[in-house]
């Protein structure tokens, strides 16, 4: 397999560059990832849901305990004491939730009656879920205590409730959010950035080598040799695939080991598969560049330009929801957009089911569609090239 071996001999000359890019990538990714994760978690505790509490019951020990518990999740906002003012605040998003405690709530609740708290929310608000479940959790716990301890005193109940705080993670489970926020988030960021660095390195590596094999005179000399072009191309394709697999494997392992919250789960495996699919997409692009572009300097420029362009347009650096609709519309014609989207979707899933995995597979399928398109273009270009040489 002389062609196969020579492929890697030539690739070896790019190795220093590839390794440098790799180290740079890992360093920067780790830095940014931790920065963002820390930032996000801060935001998570700080941004408590603003709510308006209308207390028709008046203060008592139970209500006091309840509201101070709620302060862990919400921020009580003062608004003028009228229905009108409350609705306005809700409308203008100054508060997201109006909670009314009806008169007689405490006695009714403690004696086991079904007395409902009254809530008013904007219909499109998702953040109220966490408030709902915080309230539910507290009251459910109280109800459970009441039913198992018939002779309880109010003091005992409040003690119990404060001793057994309803933990944050439980709330998150209840609201259907992620199990372990940070681990998954790290993977999502890591692999989104990997999408960028793959373009840099594959164009640099694969395109440069392919270009060497595709110089007109070299190609002629190869056609003149007793090696069929089928055999020749097969060796090149094998070499390219091996390069891409090894490259990806290294980054998968490094990504796994550097993730401080590492945990093997289905989502991570899906992310790996997605990365593999995208790696083949980028391989096709690099191959195409290698057989069409002339001049190694152009390769440098294309590697930088293409990687940055795809990264920005597809939300590898900036989350996709921050990109304008016009940008997103353009981006949806790029395979990188679907790679990132698949990653993000995987990152948002908490419990895997056919239903919530379907979009992930769809996004992968779209990328495979891109592979098919690029392969078709490669075949056409290669045929034209062959005619040019012959």
């Amino acid at each position, binding site marked *: 397999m002389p062609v196969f071996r020579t492929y890697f001999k030539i690739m070896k000359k790019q190795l220093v560059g590839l390794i440098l890019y790799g180290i740079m990538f890992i360093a920067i990714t780790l830095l940014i990832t931790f920065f963002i994760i820390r930032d996000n978690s801060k935001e998570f505790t700080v941004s408590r849901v603003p709510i308006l509490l209308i207390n028709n019951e008046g203060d008592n020990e139970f209500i006091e305990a309840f509201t101070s518990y709620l302060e862990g999740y919400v921020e009580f906002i003062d608004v003028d004491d009228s229905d009108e003012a409350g609705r306005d605040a809700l409308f203008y998003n100054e508060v997201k939730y109006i909670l009314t405690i009806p008169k007689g709530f405490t006695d009714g609740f403690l004696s086991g009656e079904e007395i409902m708290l009254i809530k008013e929310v904007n219909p499109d608000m998702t953040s109220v879920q966490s408030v709902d479940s915080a309230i539910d959790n507290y009251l459910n716990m109280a109800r459970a205590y009441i039913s198992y301890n018939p002779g309880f005193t109010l003091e005992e109940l409040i003690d119990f409730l404060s001793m057994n705080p309803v933990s944050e993670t439980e709330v998150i489970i209840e609201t259907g959010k992620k199990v372990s926020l940070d681990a998954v988030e790290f993977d999502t960021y890591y692999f989104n950035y990997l999408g960028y660095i793959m373009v840099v390195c594959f164009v640099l590596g694969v395109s440069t080598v392919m270009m060497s094999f595709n110089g007109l*005179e070299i190609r002629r000399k190869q056609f003149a040799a*007793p090696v069929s072009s089928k055999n020749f191309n097969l060796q090149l394709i094998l070499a390219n695939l091996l390069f891409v697999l090894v490259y990806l494997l290294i980054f998968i392992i490094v990504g796994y080991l550097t993730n401080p919250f590492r945990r093997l789960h289905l989502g991570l495996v899906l992310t790996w598969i997605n990365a593999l699919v995208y790696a083949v997409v980028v391989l096709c692009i690099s191959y195409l560049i290698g057989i069409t572009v002339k001049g190694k300097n152009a390769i440098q420029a294309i590697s930088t330009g293409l990687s940055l362009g795809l990264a920005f347009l597809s939300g590898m650096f900036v989350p996709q929801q921050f990109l304008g609709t016009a940008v997103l519309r353009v981006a949806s014609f790029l395979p990188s957009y679907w790679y990132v989207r698949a990653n993000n979707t995987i990152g948002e899933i908490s419990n895997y089911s056919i239903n919530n995995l379907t979009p992930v597979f769809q996004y992968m399928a779209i990328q495979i569609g891109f592979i098919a398109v690029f392969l078709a273009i490669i075949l056409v270009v290669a045929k034209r090239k062959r005619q040019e040489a012959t």
Partner: protein
Amino acid sequence: MIVKVDGLVKRYGRLVALDYLNFEVKEGEIFGLLGPNGSGKTTAINCILSLLKYDKGTIEIFGKKMGPDKYDIKRDIGIIMQNVAVFDELTVYENIYYFCSLYINDKEKIKEYTEEAISFVSLEEYKKFYPKKLSGGLLRRLNIACGIVHKPKLIILDEPTVAVDPQSRNKILEGIKLLNEQGATVIYTSHYMEEVEQICDKIAIIDKGKVVAQGTKDELKAMISIGEKITIETYQITEEQIMIIRELPNVISVIYDNNQLEIKSGRGKNNLLQVLHYMENNKIAFGKVFTQLPTLNDVFLEITGKELRD
């Protein structure tokens, strides 16, 4: 017969690059394909190697019909392209090794042949050099080493000495002769007639895609009427005297330019003597005198009406 080209026609769109080209190369020959730039030499070579599709004609190599998938024929051909075709990322050694490995499977043999090719072109000191670091002449030698490393029976060289310093050129020409002595048949294209005269046994002169004359160099020279070219330096000759020289027996043409009198005459014995006699008798002073046998350039000039080199 090693190579037989019969009625080869190749068109690039409207341009007819090869126009019923015919020639034959016998075993053990150095066959020269001599023609000016654009006469179709490279096109002919590419057709012979099945690198180009052609419109008409047949090509046989080693007595078999040549085609793109005739790998047993290709295995015994070495080709040296007009433009240097090597990998910039591979060293001298690695380049030669690679091209050898396209032809030969045995690893030990590849190594042995690679070393032999390196010493054949005297690149021992440059084994680890990358092509970018080599001068034009050394690069050409590398290109040749890549082409001959697998010890082919037929070696095709397409203008291997273009843009090469005289020293490297001589080395290359000597090398080709040596390969020929070792048993290889050679096809050599060039637009330098001196080179072709120097090393080729058989020559085909081609112009506009056609062979206009073919034979050994003596046969070619015998084809034309000029037998001798006489050049005399003189400063004081009149139009009338030139007219008289022109009328001397066996003289074909006389040109006086830049104080040089150039006389072309047919084959004969006393061509120079009669001119010098005439000049002495008429007291025309003259300086240096040369006589030359006709060159292939004269052959080309007489057949096509134009100079070989522009």
